[in-house]
């Protein structure tokens, strides 16, 4: 497993984090598997000073949940005892909460350390006099739409996950309950919008995120961390593409499992609900971790990275350094505009903005 430390100026930090995360995930899963092996079907430590204890013990020792008939309607009312919930409890209490705490905390610490060591990745050639149109208004809109919803969901989700150990001591039970209730309602409400945003993102960006020939070499060279040379990359590099697909699949998983959790009326049993919760939680932690890295690069990690999303235009030099294949083609096509033109287009100096439609359709 590669470690991202001690390397010289390499621009593609994103890729680094992607790889790092993959490793972490593997680690996480292995601990899960480990944990499960270590705890062979251990049932709740429900101590029953009850004559029924023996009967219940007998019932529990059967492999499948004992199910019978009942006149009471509802979900799983016929199930006498279902100890699978206990595995879920173990997962949530002794794995999910601590491990994801370590992961998220670790990610932040790692980034801080990385920043301390490497500092901001500059545009080597400095800012050029020209810019390339990178994202259309619509693209930026759905990105920020997704981003705002994601952050809202992440924050509310994390409140629910870590609130009991972290926030109850601060806010008290009553206070935290208010926050948690609001978080839950907000989370449930915004959840479906995440799926909407996801669909919009997929439709808009999928073509540019199909893996291409050069991507393998990008991977081999760790997104440029290894070696000095720039790694050739198209509109999106391998790391970005990976993040896109993570978003598609993991985000999809989060969305679907979230829908299951938000619709208890569907009458799904607790096992499915618990499973959905596990998927939702793991997926969410994974995505949050990745997105922290994404945000890092976009903000403090790399010079010029956020420009495209902010303004729609990126610096020509930045483009050449990070997305050379796309940049050179775009330049050949004469898409490069001078900074002044861009400023005019964006109306930065109060000039009349021109109509710009379809101009920036790019990536091909």
């Amino acid at each position: 497993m590669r470690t991202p430390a001690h390397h010289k100026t390499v621009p593609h930090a994103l890729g680094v984090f992607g790889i790092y995360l993959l490793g972490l995930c593997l680690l996480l899963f292995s601990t899960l598997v480990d944990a499960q092996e270590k705890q062979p079907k251990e049932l709740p430590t429900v101590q029953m000073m009850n004559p029924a204890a023996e009967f219940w013990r007998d019932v529990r020792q059967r492999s499948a949940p004992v199910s019978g008939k009942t006149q009471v309607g509802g979900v799983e009312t016929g199930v006498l005892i279902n100890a699978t919930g206990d595995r879920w409890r173990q997962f949530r209490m002794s794995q999910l909460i601590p491990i994801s705490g370590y992961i998220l905390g670790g990610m932040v610490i790692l980034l801080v350390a990385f920043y301390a060591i490497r500092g901001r990745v500059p545009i080597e050639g400095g800012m050029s006099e020209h810019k390339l149109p990178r994202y259309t208004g619509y693209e930026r809109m759905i990105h920020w739409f997704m981003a705002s919803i994601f952050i809202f969901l992440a924050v509310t989700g994390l409140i629910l996950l870590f609130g009991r150990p972290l926030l109850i001591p601060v806010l008290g039970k009553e206070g935290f309950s208010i926050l948690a209730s609001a978080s839950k309602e907000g989370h449930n409400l915004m959840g479906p919008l995440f799926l909407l945003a996801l669909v919009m993102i997929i439709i808009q960006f999928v073509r540019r995120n199909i893996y291409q020939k050069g991507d393998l070499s990008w991977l081999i060279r760790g997104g440029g961390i290894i070696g000095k040379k720039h790694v050739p990359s198209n509109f999106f590099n391998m790391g970005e593409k990976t993040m896109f697909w993570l978003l598609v699949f993991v985000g999809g998983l989060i969305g679907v499992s979230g829908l299951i959790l938000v619709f208890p009326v569907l009458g799904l049993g607790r096992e499915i609900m618990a499973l959905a919760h596990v998927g939702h939680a793991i997926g969410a932690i994974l995505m949050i971790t990745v997105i922290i890295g994404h945000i890092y690069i976009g903000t403090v990690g790399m010079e010029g990275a956020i420009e495209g999303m902010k303004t729609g235009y990126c610096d020509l030099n930045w483009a050449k350094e990070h997305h050379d294949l796309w940049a050179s083609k775009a330049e050949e096509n004469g898409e490069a505009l001078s900074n002044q033109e861009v400023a005019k287009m964006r109306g930065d100096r109060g000039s009349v903005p021109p109509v710009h439609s379809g101009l920036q359709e790019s990536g091909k």
Partner: protein
Amino acid sequence: MARMKFYCDPERCIECNACVTACKNENEVPWGVNRRRVVTIKDGDPGERSLSVACMHCSDAPCATVCPVDCFYTTQDGVVLHDKDICIGCGYCFYACPFGAPQFPEDGAFATRGKMDKCTFCAGGPEADHSADEHRKYGSNRLAEGKLPLCAEMCSTKALLAGDADVISDVYRKRIINRGAAVLARGVSFQDASFRAPSNLGGKSSSQE
């Protein structure tokens, strides 16, 4: 310290559902929410047994462990209760509870879960005993009146027992001794039930076979 427990004697439970309706009666639980239910295993087959199940008031309650807002508490009588003011209706306790005790009123057609509702051992909730709030949110508080849960008190065959674990154990032990002693005293056991695969009673096919 008293430690309140339920015990349902499967040898006596006849699935009459008195406990279910008694609970509804006492606590005015709405349609669709059942704090107690009777489960029959091997329904219709020899060895059929029924059990009345509700919250078991576990000593180390899984629901309490997983609750993200920590709304559960255990009373001095060992009754596991929760605070509906704190509950956010996330449903985690439902996943964790092996007995399916937590219930959720479905809140409208879009069904965000409402606040969790479960057997309180007829011990109300955190509000002041017998206050209107307590009754509205949790139902009766019989324990504070020196009474036991109505489900057990009304059980048709006294299969469902409720009370201090020690007392229950005594009652149950006595019952077991009775069962055993009767066998000893009379020298025979009739437990050789002559159950058999059902003989064919169907008219047509029976004469054909």
